[in-house]
């Protein structure tokens, strides 16, 4: 579904992603794990089209999208739930969702909205509330929901567990897993929370300072000496 080939990305002269390559297959959950500053957010932003890439290719459903703009990629079926539950703070919860559905028609919007409210009933209770006043957990739920409203085929998530209580983390990961199992949605998940990320992933990759360290199934990664030292030691 998504193929990234030898991606190189810079901030001015700072080389942030170095020859990153991987493939996410249809219907799978692919996790990318790395410490602070490893380049995870930059990678997702590059795939979404919010950050120019210097070199390399991004192929989505067989189409080279490396030079497409973000809104064009959104129309093709790529979606991103931003880091830190970033949503439109001055809009209401429902307006955030409506915006996510900017490119779909009214009937499908209503249907989609019901689907989202079933996933996160708490959002329905707060639909008229200004999104900036939501709690951290609710904001994260809204961020994921906004990204789901675009009817994506590939949903990218940037640290959905960050800063949340363990109970809410478990709730959110359950929803993600269910989404993948029930609707076949492909997920590209970026996390520092190694345990949670590997628990639901089919395959994963570890990056460090912009380089790939290792990749494989969760079991393979959990037995990798380097990873154990860096993250689980």
């Amino acid at each position: 579904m998504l193929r990234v080939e030898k991606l190189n990305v810079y901030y001015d002269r700072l080389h942030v992603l170095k020859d990153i390559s991987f493939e996410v297959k249809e219907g799978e959950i692919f996790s990318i794990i790395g410490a602070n500053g490893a380049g995870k957010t930059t990678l997702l932003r590059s795939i979404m089209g919010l950050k120019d890439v210097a070199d390399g290719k991004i192929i989505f459903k067989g189409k080279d999208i490396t030079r497409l703009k973000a809104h064009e990629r959104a129309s093709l079926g790529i979606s991103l739930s931003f880091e830190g539950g970033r949503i439109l703070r001055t809009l209401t919860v429902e307006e955030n969702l409506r915006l996510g559905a900017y490119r779909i028609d009214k009937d499908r919007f209503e249907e989609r909205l019901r689907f989202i409210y079933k996933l996160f009933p708490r959002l329905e209770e707060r639909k008229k509330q200004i999104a900036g006043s939501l709690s951290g957990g609710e904001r994260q739920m809204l961020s994921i929901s906004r990204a789901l409203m675009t009817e994506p085929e590939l949903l990218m998530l940037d640290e959905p567990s960050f800063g949340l209580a363990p109970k809410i983390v478990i709730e959110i990961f359950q929803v993600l897993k269910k989404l993948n199992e029930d609707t076949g949605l492909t997920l590209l998940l970026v996390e520092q929370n190694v345990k949670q990320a590997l628990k639901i992933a089919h395959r994963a990759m570890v990056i460090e300072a912009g380089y790939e360290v290792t990749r494989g199934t969760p079991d393979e990664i959990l037995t990798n000496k380097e990873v154990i030292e860096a993250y689980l030691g």
Partner: protein
Amino acid sequence: MFLQQVINGFASGGIYTLVALGLTLVYGVLKILHIAHAGIYALGAYLALIAYRIYPNIYFAFAFAMVGTAIGGYLVQKYLYWPILDKPRIVPLIASIGLFLALEELYRLIWGPYVIPFPQKFHWKSYNLGHIRLPGSDLFVFALSLFFLFILYWIVNRTKVGLAMRAVSDDKEVAEASGIDSKWIIALSFIIGSALAGAAGLMVGVYYNSIYPTMGDVPAYKSLAIIVVGGMGSIEGTVIAGFGLGLLEALLIGYLPFAFPRDALAFIAMIIFLLIKPEGLFSR
């Protein structure tokens, strides 16, 4: 007397608001101070002159001025701001001031340094409310301002494109990732803001019966003060600060026992706000 001052204040407040809203819309989506907007406002008045030469009708003049300024605003964002957007924010600010001065010189070259009267004479009726006389020109300007404000309100709060405008001004990247073409939404903000300024320019031409190259000077700094007081980028704040300024000016002039420098009030208000409430009335 009091009601007369109030209506007079609402009339000039309406004009201030219409001009300042362009600044607000542009600041919202681009986070730059669009000083040259006051040049677009003056353009509206001059375009009304041209319109009258083609076909002397007030509706036609409105349409002509608003379409013309909308195109003007679109070209400004496309050829001036867009190429320098990734530069430090001082660069578009200086470019904007430069364009404003250049536009004034351009108007001077084309139409001369004179004060030109508005080509149509309006015979305003006054409306009597008991023993109070309300001048028709004030009512005309006030009613039209409300009409344009209502249209803007409707676009911003009730349409899909308005939702996109609010989204882009809140967080451009989240909006883009939701499938919104922010480049088009930014252009649209200029188009709408400039058309409003064009309407305001025409209305001032009618109201004061005078059109001249530097007529944008006072609105330029007043609208700056208004958006600071209103809270940068806030539409509600701009409307309240704009009408508030018009009203305060009219009342102070009407009731203060000494001559008050009318045009200084906007800056006094701005300085007070910067000192005690720098985020403005409606901070976002």
